[in-house]
């Protein structure tokens, strides 16, 4: 599908008529591989940026030499950063081939040993008990089958291994403009509450060891997206930037405001959750 077609599909499809899981996964992967995502999200695709990535790593007590799996590693920023900062050996997987290539290029440019591969979080291509830790930033919310992902995490962790999830949390009803496929891709409509994330992990035998709220980081990210959107809209309307067809500023502004309101009302937030596989 073209970007324009995705944008149309994103805003028109209500989550009530839930699409096929494979369509969802492909759509998420494509959108996050697109330049739109980078234009609106900047260098780091999750709230709090590297500061919250560091915080998650601290909560997990990552140690030099640890083999760490990064689920939906995107352009590789977190994995490369954590390898440098904590001396871990990360492997990042992502559903999008484009994104994986981008991450590999970034690693080679940074001289990082971080490895990247195409993969599906619901069906991991790794041995049992092959990782010391798993991290998953702002992507648990977009995996269609969270039970499968949880059991895969549990399977690839060694006994005593830790998992750290940083994710958008949802407590309560959302306005209709967020209950779309776009809302899904934007980590919103299928986000769990922190309690339910912990429960999903517990269902796979992983015991919660920590939870921190960072709702302000989500508010800041949404505000920054506003700045980027405003800059793009100004550039487009002044005739200074040529944007791809299909950019609907009205819709984008409406969705962004609805998300900002939802954070303010406490319906949406951001949490770091850690759990451990028993010895």
């Amino acid at each position, binding site marked *: 599908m073209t970007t324009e077609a995705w944008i149309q599909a994103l805003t028109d499809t209500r989550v009530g008529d839930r699409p096929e899981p494979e369509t969802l996964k492909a759509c998420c992967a494509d959108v996050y591989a*697109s330049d739109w995502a980078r234009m609106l999200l*900047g260098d780091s695709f999750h709230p709090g940026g590297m500061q919250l990535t560091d915080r998650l790593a601290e909560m997990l007590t990552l140690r030099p030499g640890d083999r760490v799996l990064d689920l939906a590693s995107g352009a590789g920023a977190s994995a490369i950063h954590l390898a440098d900062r904590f001396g871990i050996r990360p492997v990042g997987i992502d559903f999008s081939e*484009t994104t994986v290539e981008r991450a590999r290029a*970034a690693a080679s440019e940074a001289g990082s040993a971080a490895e990247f591969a195409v993969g599906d979080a619901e069906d991991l291509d790794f041995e049992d008990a092959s990782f010391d830790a798993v991290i998953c930033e702002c992507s648990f919310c977009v995996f269609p089958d969270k039970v499968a992902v949880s059991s895969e995490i549990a399977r690839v962790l060694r006994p005593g291994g830790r998992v750290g999830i940083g994710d958008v949390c949802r407590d309560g009803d959302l306005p209709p403009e967020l209950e779309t496929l776009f809302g899904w891709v934007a980590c919103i409509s299928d986000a769990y509450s922190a309690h339910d994330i912990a429960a999903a992990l517990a269902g796979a035998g992983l015991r919660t060891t920590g939870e921190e709220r960072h709702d302000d980081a989500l508010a800041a990210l949404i505000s920054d997206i506003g*700045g980027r959107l405003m*800059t793009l809209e*100004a550039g487009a309307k002044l005739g200074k930037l*040529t944007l*791809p067809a299909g950019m609907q500023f009205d819709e984008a502004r409406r969705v962004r*405001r609805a998300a900002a309101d939802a954070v303010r009302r406490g319906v949406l937030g951001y949490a770091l959750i850690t759990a451990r596989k028993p010895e």
Partner: protein
Amino acid sequence: MANESGVISRGAAADSMDSAHAAGAVFHELTRSLCPVCRRVIDAKVLLRDGAVFMHKRCPQHGAFEARVYGDAEAYVNFARFNRPGTVPEAFSTEVSHGCPHDCGLCPDHEQHACVGIIEVNSACDMDCPLCFADAGRGYSLTLAEVEAALDSFVRTEAAPEVVQFSGGEPSIHPQIGEMMRAASRRGIRHVMLNTNGRRIARDDAFLDELADIRPAIYFQFDGFDADTNQKIRGEPDLLGEKIRALDRLATIGCPVILVPAIEWGVNEHEVGRIVEFGLEHPAVFGINFQPAFHAGRHGDHDPLRRVTNPDILRWIEEQTDGRFRVSDFFPVPCCFPTCNSATYAYVEDGEVTPLPRILPMEDYMDYIANRVLMDVPGEMRRLLEELWSAASIPGTGDAAYAFDLACAACGLPQGLGGIEDIAGRMFMITLQDFMDPWTFNQKNVMKCCKEILLPDGKQIPFCAYNSVGYREQAREQLAARQPDRDRARRTGEPLEIQPLRFEFDHPGTEA
């Protein structure tokens, strides 16, 4: 009837409310203010009359007072819809004990975190202006350690503070001002500003070199062109040459400048348009922050019933720029209070001005603008555009299925940095900021104030409370009393112990 000083009657309660009941006045709301004489907290009526907004109040000891607080009654009432929930700081520095405005600060009753921290590094100045809210003169000169303590407290309460402004006195004459600005940058504070009269910049080459290295934004006092203006406000008729020289020198080092004119009725309201035109033309200037002259600290005779307010300046801008900027191009900024600040951003090319509100629905972006520094949205836009540029040049992008063509339509440079420079470099900003004085003080606004004076002991005091309630005088006295200790510490190299500042008020609470 009010006389020249705005005092309607002293102590005669019987006739003190006559003005409040003037024909056609609408009682809009009740708030709390101050007695301009004894500074005790008193109730105040906000009245809508003749299309403007007035504050009427009575002190049991000093009688009734009335002041003009806003020049557009309709906007004053309508702007309530721009009020947004405040964001509170990470930590507070004081407790609630006497009640607002006597517990600063910030105390847990404050409704807004600090967008801007202001550090007055000294009280001395190399000018002697008739209008000076800081009442500059002999007194104190903080040590680097004291300034660092204030910065550390700011970092503690804000987590990631965005703006620190160094002020005074005249901060540029502090021998360690360069180290102080660097200390702020080192703490990750993104925007460091220097609030200056520009004299040292005009005269001192070494100082200019230091600024070129640190690159702060310059908040540049500039009241107009007429000798009479500069005589009345600054006490020096021949100031213009020095101002222009300073601005030209700032242009050579690429320090961004915001002109800061204080506008006083009967003095320089006729220069508003010319200041805008000058700002649009001068290469160093990327914005103007108009401020109605306010009457705290040192000021001449004034008539509170003829006080300049933001809507007046907006009308003068429209009239005097032939509508290049119109009143409707400006939007209220939610913090502090929507009536405290108005702003617009404009794209300027070949003399053609396109205010963004004419092409964008600003209300949809207000949360972004509000939580950002009022002063640096163009700078932020530049940062975002540069980020975009770097995103577009990440290796691998060319292979992306949806490679994005960041073309510059105007100059035909595909994926050219030209487009980015074009937009960010041509953004111009005009903001208006009305500070309160003891005549116009409204406690409701102060509780949402986001511009705080940072003191060495970690207290943060809303700017308008600092100037109007009595904090400034008490802080000045205590900071000056420690000057011998500072001088001794400088001589001996021994550390100076930072002591807490204590504030006491004769009339805490609301006896009135």
